[in-house]
């Protein structure tokens, strides 16, 4: 796993302020420590996919979500994916929350950047393999996006055996632990033009978000 320094800065709210040597050195230290300590793991499986109305059937899993249905429209197959960069980020955040809050915030941001790039990397290999079979990928879509309820985490975790295979667990409130983790559905379609580069942000209701990315 690689931590993208620029992305980390973005998550930290960096908007071109003066970046003093001390801060950038600290960021480098944190990112390097996190890269060395993390052990990213992932698991994914591919299923038949049927969409009718707001109903999605993914293998044996039934999902009701309008947003996901839109995302998967025209996909005959879809991949269920779970990935985590492991416990190191959470442990480092705990540690640095005691001794150095700036570093704690940096781990938080570096971890977010780390899991994103790790999932991108997994997605690339899924894409490559899918392209070989004439499929194109839709943008990945996670429980919690739009009206795709977080409750589906339970099902995804059971189907993918996340706890046993990659050490990823769910809390009572369906949050993932280790926290720097992603679950997602990725639709596979034979129609290339539909695999557009729609940003996930465009579906989110928090329009005043500092981190919102639109139309890039």
């Amino acid at each position: 796993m690689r931590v993208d320094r620029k992305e980390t800065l973005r998550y930290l709210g960096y908007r071109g302020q003066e970046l003093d040597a001390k801060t950038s050195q600290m960021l480098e230290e944190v990112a390097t420590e996190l890269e060395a300590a993390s052990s990213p793991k992932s698991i994914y499986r591919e299923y038949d996919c049927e969409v009718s109305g707001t109903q999605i059937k993914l293998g044996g899993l039934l999902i009701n979500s309008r947003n996901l249905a839109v995302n998967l429209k025209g996909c005959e197959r879809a991949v269920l994916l779970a990935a985590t960069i492991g416990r190191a980020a959470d442990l480092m955040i705990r540690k640095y929350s005691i001794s150095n809050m700036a570093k704690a915030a940096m781990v938080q941001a570096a971890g977010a950047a780390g899991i994103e790039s790790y999932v991108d990397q997994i997605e690339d290999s899924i894409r490559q393999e899918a392209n070989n079979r004439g499929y194109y990928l839709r943008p990945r879509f996670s429980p919690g996006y739009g009206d795709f309820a977080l409750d589906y985490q339970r099902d995804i975790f059971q189907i993918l055996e996340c706890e046993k295979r990659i050490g990823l667990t769910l809390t009572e409130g369906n949050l993932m632990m280790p926290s720097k983790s992603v679950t997602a559905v990725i639709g596979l379609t034979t129609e290339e033009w539909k695999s557009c580069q729609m940003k996930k942000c465009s579906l989110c209701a928090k329009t005043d978000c500092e981190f919102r990315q639109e139309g890039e």
Partner: protein
Amino acid sequence: MGFRERLGRELLFFDGAMGTMLQQQGLASGELPEIWNVTKKEVILDIHRQYLDAGCDIIKANTFGANPFKVKGTDYTCEELTTQGVAVAKQAVAESGRKAYIALDIGSLGKLLEPLGELPFEEAYEAFKPMCIAGEQAGADLCLIETMNDTYEIKAAVLAAKENTSLPIVVTMVFDECGKLLTGADMEAAVAMLEGLKVDALGLNCGFGPDVMKTFLPRLREVTSLPIVVNPNAGLPVVVDGRTCFQVSPQEFAGIMEEIAQDGVSVMGGCCGTTPAHIHALVEQCKNILPMELTDKNRSVVSSYTHAVVLNQRPKIIGERINPTGKSRFKQALRDNDLEYIYKEALTQQDKGAHILDVNVGLPEIDEVEMMRSVVTGLQGITDLPLQIDTSDSTAMEVALRLYNGKPLLNSVNGKQESMDAVFPLAAKYGAMVVCLTLDEHGIPDTAEGRIKIAEKMIAEATRYGIAKKDLLIDTLTMTISTGQENAKITLDALYHVRHVLGVHTTLGVSNISFGLPQRERVNTAFFTMALAQGLSAGIINPNSEAMMAAYHAYCALNGSDSQCTDYINIYSQQTEQPKTAVKSGEIGLFDAVVRGLAESSYQAAKKELETKEPLAVIDEELIPALDKVGQGFEKKTVFLPQLLMSADAAKAGFDAIKEHLQAKGDTSASKGTIVIATVKGDIHDIGKNIVKVLLENYGFQVIDLGKDVPPETVVETARQNQVKLVGLSALMTTTVANMEITIQMLKKELPDCKVMVGGAVLTQTYADMIGADFYSKDAMGSVRYANELFQV
């Protein structure tokens, strides 16, 4: 013959996968396989039968996931599914007419334990307990705790099996390609803990095929004295058409397993993807091979949840700073339940190079047992160093030994019969290495011979409990030379004899030597070096003392344990520049130190200012203006978050200097006001809340931090008890904002005068208004502004 008698004397064979076989029979993904013990008993029976026909010696009952968490929501209890699973296995054995053992199969609970997860250790223990009891009652011959990836969960399972059954215990774990568990534990750490807990055999299962597992085994053989079990998958899982497949054929599997058997193991079988055909091939190919010869590796080792620390030629440092003796600030922290102060001591010592941390939190006026419980749990969430549990309270001792995630070091037992009767059983049960003080009913002998005699007595007594010499760490007691100059020689002579004649590792509380003398560090370092030369295995010292650490590193270079002086050179070749920067940083004023985020300089500058100024003036004229400057910069976006936080930490260091100053004068400062903050129920994200806390504290507020996942009732109750005017709530997820709303409603109803400010990633002003919050803070500085307005009446 029982399983225990045959284990290690002949090669025994486990069966193969159950899950894979059940999937072939139509088990849906996500369906709990253990339900089939009741609903499709014939299928389970038939699978057992096939494995028995394949020639295995042990079959795993279909109970892997029958724990209370996983059966929740089904029509069955944990006991029912466990009992039925073992009963079906028993029936299969009876019908086959073969001699085979039944393993009660125990898998992971599927929940993450504290401190990272939500599950407390004792609840994990309680979840395993009914399985163990039901399994033994139903007739299991052994307990197999398998597919484990967290030593803490393993410990809960092993204790549940040990305390509630008399079954032999076998533990197999899943190591990743780096040879580590998912929790980061290496093989040595896991082995140290399991040998301490006296399991009967240990090994590997799942994760990989036999080819990869084969590469892990040399390391395992090197570190364990126990029989080794190997249950690999039939290769790595390959996903074909949405189904997981394993592609190593029976012949291929048996071929590699034969190589493994030739290299030495005690029990072998299969995990995911293996079938009766694999086991048949395995048994046929390996049945005439002898098991690995068991040898005592005789390692003196303690471990944390990640790694082991081995006592050997290279002496180790035990950090002594977590101890209230003679430290008023530390005592105050214990009285105030200021655990953060204690944790900071831990992190500093780790940074300075300690290998093990002594933990003493005893103070007459506090509840030591509860404090020990909190501190040991908390420390295991922030430092991966092994802990030395230092208490004379046997209840606190047992609480800590139980909660400790690894093989602990216990401080201490002495030669009094009463002490040995109390401590040795605990050390034996939890597999601790134990510090033995050479004193007894007659006090501390004033001759080396006297202390050696007590050491010998203690070694003999420990043996009665099955505690070997390798698990003792004898302290020949440092007495100050200011009351008797021969004291150093007595201690060192006894130490030499213990280490080199009795062959037992040694420890000393080094700094006692100089008690009552000026410039104590000078004497301490000299004595430390002398003790190391006499055979000190682990010195209890202050790692924050550069002189002591220098003596240590120099000694390791001299005695050859620091190979090619690598560490010495690494540490000291870069230190030439340091004096310069120290001088430079000393010149920075408090205001600048805070603005530039230099914690150490801020602390020093504040101390200097306090020599001439009143504490309040230092706060009002330097600290607060500096914080304001940075805070405004943050709001104008000329300063970004890490810089704000560095300044906050620097300000905190300045405030620490003021606190110490006031405490020395017996003064306790009044705070601006008290604020309760919490991350709401269901939410586990707390970094934002922690940032708010640091900033509020900087501005002089007393903050009661309730942590994360906090029930509404707790928030209301704490706010009521402390009569606070302001509560801050944080939520990161849309789903948990609902709980925020409930908390606000409850607060408004019960404490109508209390204001509520909210923040968190998904919140907006509109959302905050909707759920009835008084203030929405879009960032941490916003909360400071609001609190200042509210309290400035």
